[in-house]
């Protein structure tokens, strides 16, 4: 198992690569979702306000 994480001495190059890719993919998934939710919330609030 320790061998696996050491990557034959290249751990400091291999794992940051995977980490950065994971971060990049996560951001491109999370941010639009958050934006979508904010947008929906605003719309709902406005519809409610107009009905009053």
């Amino acid at each position, binding site marked *: 198992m320790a061998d*696996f994480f050491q990557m034959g001495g290249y751990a400091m190059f291999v794992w940051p690569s995977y980490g950065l890719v994971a971060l990049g993919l996560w951001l491109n998934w999370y941010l639009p979702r958050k934006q979508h939710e904010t947008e929906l919330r605003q719309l709902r609030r406005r519809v409610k306000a107009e009905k009053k």
Partner: protein
Amino acid sequence: MFLWFHKLGSPPHFYRIAGKWIPWLNWMFLVLLVAGLYGGLVLAPPDYQQGESYRIIFVHVPAAWMSLFIYVAMAVCGAIIIIWRMKLAEIVLISSAPIGASFTFLALVTGSLWGKPMWGTYWVWDARLTSELILLFLYLGVIGLHNAIDDKRTAARAVAILALVGVVNIPIIHYSVEWWHSLHQGATVTKFDKPSIHWSMLLPLLLMALAFQVYYVLALFHRCRAEILRRERNSKWIEEL
């Protein structure tokens, strides 16, 4: 057929379809990703020359392929915008840009992290690396130009032209390793004779590439949905949501 195309092109319809697809895409992406990572990090043997460091290939190459693919997709949208002024193409084009920029950035960074142990340097002004960096600037240019113009329809046309002009860079990137003397290795998979890579490495690489492809559609759908809501704020159908 044409009717179907027309219907798909309408933002409300696309919004609903995308919403239905997202859970399926999530699963497809996760399965492909886990299979690809397991194949690439655990099953594939170390490289006879590069040892374990070559395992960066399983994220580097798919990211680089996606950086090219997404740009071509944007250029296709650009053509559709100029010819048919289709609203959905505008949304897809501008929603693709940040995803493509991310993949380009990741391809550059992972390449640089691979270059350090193998070439002894993080960066060289080499044809492949430089043309990929130009691709990153093209993506940033698309995003910047779109933000700079207030009217979204005008912005879309401007961006469409930029996307179309920039597409000349794509073959330059692909053939850069053949046209110039490059430190970067030549193509190992996308060439006409047999790929010069063993299947135990090729298979996880293709799985990862497929996973990234599915991921692009997934991220694109999320972004398009947010963008559609922002644009259609004042239309009737949105009040039903």
